[in-house]
């Protein structure tokens, strides 16, 4: 038991979740025994990238003993409402391709679900999948987003008539006239600038791949309604969608995210095909049905993000002050069939954040998301912003090199100093102190000292380098932004109930996947109510007993959900104060009372007035002679709404040593400086930073989704899609430079979502800095020794020729 002097908020309280997870008692989706003898569903997936389905022969599969049903797209086309539907489509001007849970008429990427096989056990289901025969008639491949934009390109969705799923200019205003005027102004800035950096950058296709894949278990009963357990970040949204799609009243749909989920990082937020098929099957067959995704399916069908080209330009003066930015962003959207996010929401948001933490009031930024014969982009940590961070932070280093200044100085001079502000794309930065975070970083690393070491090393034939990356990242999105964009709210919500023994239950409609909500939310409630976190139980993710919640994603837990928990705890505290004051004939001013050490104290009394346990018992079990307005309820549901997005800020520095003869590089040191506002649990924040940085490094160096010239996916197993292991990951040093957030009751922001964003830029800037004598610039991810070596050879040839 951790004893704390100053309070639970801010304590390195060891996690409540850990005991069960360390002893094999976690309850992940595949562990649940909530239904008896579920039927198992496996999918036959397309073996080709783009084709008409000529025929499907399910006869051998259907006859296999143990197989209960085999369904194709033709079987469901008139039975299931296709997407898009009101609850699955944003209110943005884009194209939302009609699609069913199984392919109808044609397949559009290697791995698209074509047939659903239902059997009594998974081995039989797998055998049956092998027996299904699908004949395809190939269609022309659409694998390159730039080519796919051409008017004569073959189309992924012929009924839509274009491959451009979304296109928007994000700067200047909403009308064409305003945008043209802005473009002209930016053009003039570029025409008159002392320095222009212009280059093309590419953030490759990679993602987040949590250790637990997707899955769903569903059961249907005409009386009890629909019951779904699924690995999801957004159970309330799933409930909405199931209700809408299958015409089941919402109050007869219950969706539960399991108490334990093995990570998500965004990939479990959308509305995907497979769970919809599971719900349909349970209704059709009248029996519980289960689907647990395989890793191969996961790597083929979801988890692919980033994949953006940035044609980025900076206009600057001789001192390095950035005067303007142009960025034409092209995202490879894949087949674009994905509920709620449709592939393009991520690059759209990433494009809106391109200016990052830099003061660049004049920008011309556009985003075009293009359909191809690949899996649709699915959300991944950093949510569309990673390639843009990489591009701009690389461009800033190029600018520094061009004008002969240190990249650290050029960054500092361009950081936003006035907060709050709106950046050129209209995104609001609410509070914080970017310069303080930055200064803490550079103070720690002592750039001038490093430059001296670097010179000495070069003289000895050793090439060491320093690189930076920064990121402003959102923690949650306010209703004010989410309602017009998605038709959905963004508020944080929580219900707190105190019982007659003085213990607390928090009901949270979000669905954490490792963020430690059972710990952090307990710390908050405990501090406000004068209890120990052990007295607080947190229940998550069940739509039956939690208020409507947007979900656990985008780091909204620390900003939105935590705030709702704090508000609910305070409301209950105030209720208790009213009764205690009345019982003791004291003025009912909450400021006069202290909740501490499981008792309630008054400023004028040396002895505690009562214990929390006894006052709760008095209120709930003996509600006599209560003050006017009070009742026996010690329950409260709070909704936290903020107009502000509560941005967090990170500045990262990487030190590398590079070998110019081989292109190999080694990370010597990696430091992150963070502002997350007031920290609830430093252990958990540090874990989020370390995990996020290593994901960013793994993305940058190892991971890559590869499609060959036939549209075949080559990276469908962990043997080929390589994830960083313990031997690959460096230690991450963390500095805190926290400014409390003015817009949340506790001063907290969320942390976790944007952490991978600045990592590739920091790493590549360090490598280019190390190899500066050889004059290479890294423009494309991934960064690997062979690619660095190729750049070195090209630079040699340029120097020679």
């Amino acid at each position, binding site marked *: 038991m951790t004893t704390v002097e100053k309070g639970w908020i801010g304590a390195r309280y*060891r996690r409540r979740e850990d005991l069960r997870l360390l*002893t*094999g008692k976690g309850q992940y989706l595949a562990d649940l025994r909530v239904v008896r003898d579920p039927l198992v569903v496996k999918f036959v997936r397309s073996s080709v990238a783009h084709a008409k389905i000529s025929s499907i022969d399910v006869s051998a599969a259907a006859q296999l003993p143990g197989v209960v049903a085999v369904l194709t797209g033709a079987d469901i086309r008139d039975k299931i409402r296709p997407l898009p539907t009101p609850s699955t489509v944003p209110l943005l001007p884009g194209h939302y391709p009609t699609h069913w849970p199984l392919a109808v008429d044609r397949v559009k990427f290697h791995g698209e679900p074509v047939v659903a096989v239902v059997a009594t056990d998974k081995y039989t289901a797998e055998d049956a999948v092998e027996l299904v025969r699908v004949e395809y008639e190939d269609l022309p491949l659409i694998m390159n987003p730039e080519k796919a934009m051409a008017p004569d390109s073959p189309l992924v969705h012929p009924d839509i008539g274009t491959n451009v799923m979304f296109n928007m200019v994000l700067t200047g205003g909403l009308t064409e006239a305003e945008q043209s005027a802005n473009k002209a102004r930016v053009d003039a800035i570029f025409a008159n600038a002392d320095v222009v950096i212009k280059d093309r950058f590419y953030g490759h296709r990679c993602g987040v791949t949590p250790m*637990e894949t997707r899955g769903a278990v569903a059961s249907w009963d005409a009386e009890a309604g629909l019951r779904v357990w699924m690995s999801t970040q957004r159970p309330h949204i799933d409930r909405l969608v199931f209700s809408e799609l299958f015409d089941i009243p919402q109050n007869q749909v219950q969706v539960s995210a399991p108490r334990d989920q*093995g990570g998500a990082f965004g990939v479990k937020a959308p509305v995907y095909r497979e769970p919809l098929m599971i719900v349909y099957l349970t209704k059709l067959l009248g029996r519980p049905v289960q689907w647990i995704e395989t*890793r191969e399916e996961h790597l083929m069908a979801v988890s692919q993000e980033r994949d953006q080209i940035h044609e980025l330009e900076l206009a600057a003066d001789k001192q390095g002050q950035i005067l303007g930015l142009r960025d034409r962003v092209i995202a490879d959207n894949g087949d674009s069939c994905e509920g709620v996010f449709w592939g393009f929401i991520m690059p759209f948001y990433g494009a809106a954040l391109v200016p990052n933490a830099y003061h660049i009031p004049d920008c011309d930024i556009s985003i075009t998301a293009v359909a191809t014969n690949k899996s649709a982009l699915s959300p991944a940590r950093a949510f569309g912003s990673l390639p843009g961070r990489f591009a701009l932070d690389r461009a800033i280093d190029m600018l520094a090199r061009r004008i002969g200044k240190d990249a650290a100085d050029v960054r500092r001079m361009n950081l936003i100093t006035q907060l709050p502000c709106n950046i050129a794309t209209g995104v609001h930065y609410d509070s914080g102190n970017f310069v303080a975070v930055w200064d803490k970083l550079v103070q720690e690393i002592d750039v001038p000292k490093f430059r001296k070491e670097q010179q000495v090393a070069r003289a000895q034939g050793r090439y060491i380098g320093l690189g930076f990356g920064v990121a402003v990242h959102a923690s949650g999105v306010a209703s004010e932004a989410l309602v017009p964009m998605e038709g959905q709210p963004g508020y944080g919500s929580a219900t707190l109930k105190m019982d007659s023994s003085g213990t607390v239950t928090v009901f949270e409609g979000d669905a954490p996947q*490792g963020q430690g909500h059972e710990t952090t939310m307990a710390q908050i409630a405990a501090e406000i109510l004068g209890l120990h976190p052990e007295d607080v139980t947190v229940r998550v993710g069940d739509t039956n007993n939690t208020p409507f919640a947007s979900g656990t994603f985008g780091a909204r837990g620390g900003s939105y959900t935590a705030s709702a928990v704090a508000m609910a705890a305070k409301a209950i505290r105030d209720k208790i104060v009213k009764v205690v004051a009345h019982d003791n004939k004291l003025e009912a001013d909450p400021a006069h009372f202290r909740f501490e050490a499981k008792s309630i104290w008054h400023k004028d009394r040396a002895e505690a007035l009562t214990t929390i346990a006894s006052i709760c018992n008095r209120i709930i079990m003996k509600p006599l002679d209560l003050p006017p307005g009070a009742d026996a309820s010690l329950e409260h549901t709070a909704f936290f709404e903020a107009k502000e997005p509560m941005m967090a800020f990170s500045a990262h520095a990487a030190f590398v040593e590079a070998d110019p003869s081989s292109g190999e590089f080694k990370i010597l040191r990696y430091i992150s400086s963070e502002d997350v506002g007031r920290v609830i649990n430093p252990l958990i924040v540090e874990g989020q930073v370390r995990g996020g940085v290593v994901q960013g490094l793994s993305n940058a160096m190892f991971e890559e989704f590869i499609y060959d010239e036939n549209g075949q996916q080559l990276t469908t197993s962990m043997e080929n899609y390589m994830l960083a292991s*313990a031997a690959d990951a460096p230690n*991450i040093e963390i500095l805190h430079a926290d400014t409390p957030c003015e817009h949340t009751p506790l001063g907290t922001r969320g942390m976790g979502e944007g952490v991978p964003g600045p990592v590739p830029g920091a790493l590549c800037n360090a490598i280019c800095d190390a190899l500066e004598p050889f004059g290479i610039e890294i423009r494309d991810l991934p960064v690997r020794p062979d690619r660095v070596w190729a750049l070195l050879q090209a630079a040699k040839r340029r120097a020679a020729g």
Partner: protein
Amino acid sequence: MTREISVTVNGTVHRKSVPVRLLLVDFIRDVLELTGTHQACTYEGVCGACTVQLNGEAVKSCMMLAVQADGQQVTTIEGLAKDGALHPLQKAFKEHHGLQCGFCTSGMIMNAEEFLRVNPRPTEEEIRHALIGNICRCTGYQGIVAAVSAAAEEMSAAGTPARSGS
């Protein structure tokens, strides 16, 4: 095709009739209902989440058939704590925040437990290399390495003898 097997799991003998094709991980999870061992890849044997010990040696249970464990001793994460007392690794993982979602944790610990018997005083580099076979997506490994290191220290201070697989 089925076969009768007798497997000792965490000290308890289980006699079952199983299909020959049944994987050991499915035997553990679905037949014995010990769900602490997880499966995170499609039996490539890369992720390590399914790691258990066979006669004290860390193995990937998705790469074995249950029938291969006939007559053998298997230890899973559920068998690590003795009479409610957590193993030093389990305590250290909690103390050093060596887990977030927990999905890789069982396999990570079962691998680390054997490693510390073989190498009771490892360097950080040795720990990192020993855990190559266990992928984690949440922690960035730093808390895990700190936990294994701390457990090693506690175990050598206590003079804990090497355990044979049980």
